[in-house]
């Protein structure tokens, strides 16, 4: 009985290796390819326009200035939460919709607009551009 279990254990390990090896090789190859790039280029490669837009926005605003992240749809909050990580330690405040932002007396002046139906990015908008987005 023990030898049967050991054979089954060996088979289970072979199956696991068979399942994991291609993915592991793919990941190692990806790492080897990304090695030539600097850190920001690697992130841009992995995250696409979202990361690029966050970096652009971060460079355009003075250090430490708070930013409002406004979501067109509730589902856009996922991108906003993800963006928090790259924006930190810059203070951020989240708003579900333009109205919520406009009604907040303590709203940050800088506006990051997230509408992933249009693009997977955070767009820096002026109040006027925000009003135009809201009226669409």
């Amino acid at each position, binding site marked *: 009985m*023990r030898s049967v*279990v050991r054979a*089954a254990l060996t088979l289970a390990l072979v*199956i696991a290796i068979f399942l*994991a090896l291609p*993915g592991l090789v793919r990941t190692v190859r990806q*790492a080897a390819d990304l090695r030539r790039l600097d850190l920001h280029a690697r992130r841009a490669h*992995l995250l696409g326009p979202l990361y690029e837009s966050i970096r652009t926005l971060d460079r355009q605003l003075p250090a430490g200035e708070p930013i409002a992240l406004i979501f067109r749809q509730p589902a856009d909050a996922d991108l906003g939460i993800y963006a928090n990580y790259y924006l930190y*330690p810059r203070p951020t405040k989240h708003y579900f919709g333009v109205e919520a932002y406009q009604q907040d007396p303590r709203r940050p002046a800088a506006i990051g607009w997230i509408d992933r139906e249009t693009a997977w990015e955070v767009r820096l908008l002026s109040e006027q551009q925000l009003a135009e987005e809201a009226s669409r």
Partner: protein
Amino acid sequence: LIPALLTLVWFPLVGAAVSRILGRVPFFLAGVAASGVSLFLLLLSGIPLGWGIILLAACSVLLLLFRPRRREEGYSRRSDVDVLVVVLPVAAMLFAVSIIPQHDYDGTAFWMLKAKAIATEGAVDGPFFRGENTFSPRNQYPLLLPIDVALVMQISGGADDLAVRWLFPLILGSLALEMRRRFRLRYPPAVATLCAGLLVWTPQFALKPEGGAMSAYSDIALAAFIAMAFFELVDGTSSARLGFWTAAMVLTKSEGLPVALLLIVAGVWVFRFRIIAAAVPLIASAAALVVWRSRIEITDEGDLFGRTVSLLPSRIEDLLPALAELSSYAFVFRDWGAFWVITAGAAVVLMVRRQWRPLMLAGLVIIGGALLYSAVSAVSEWDRSELLRVTASRLLMHLAGPALYLIASASGATKVDVSHLDVDAE
């Protein structure tokens, strides 16, 4: 490179110091647990992270210099070529994470953000956790791993995630090597290596972006601490070590507390009155967690534990369907291969052979853990199927240690009686 080397030096150093108090422990895992628990307590007492790190380093060095090494019978330093089955995939993961930046969603948006905040603010109850400067999702999640990550960030002088990614594959590798070492004491070496290899090669551990060793989730750390605590039950020699690991579980993930309680209940059977030595650190870490939560903003998830206890009686009919749904994820071939199939087979073999002790111990933790997780999903505000779709495979990871013990017990005869080891560890 410096943060990677720090990860390799700091945690084993602290773990070695822990071994001077508790006896034989895997240095790396014990270092991860002890650093997280002690820094959490220090931060909670108002000591800033930087000073906490200095204090912890000083205590570790003093312990290593002045407290004699404990007796370590049964500690096999022999390392054969078969260890490559563990070392090679972990080396591949380390290579990959040293180049590819962090990008899995939960790991980045939840866990790494907390680490970055702790490293930046030097506190666990500063503006970030009070919800004053940014939205922190799952703000009340336990902080052991983010504190360990913040520690490496703080010492290395940066807050970049690439610098700290080694920690996660090293936890998996350390768990696998410790399992291999422990199993070699009881079972034939081939069985020990096969079990350790199965752990690191199973895609859910090796590859999955949600919870795998190349993500920044806390599930592998919790699986490691549960496994260590479980092995203390199996050995039955040190309830203090059981307490140490359960305290780390509580501060690693919300699921840690109920599973820790389960292990303590099983520990009453094994340790009798000596279980008090295990209960004290567990109660202390649970109390610390409660105090911390009273100081911070609770964001998007309420008191899961309390909710489950209060609502379960009225939804008891949902428990078994939830358990069946959770269990079905154990047989998703692309994530688990034959891991849980062979675990089930091993349980049957042990039953036929009437080997009740391993069956009872592992069964209590696996079935008890699965029931606890099913209960939480049964009373959740979320759609149950959706909740299990995103969590079930990760929850099953927590139970891998007891499962591999079941497999090893069914695969090999007990080679050495280790029950006499470290009897002075109490």
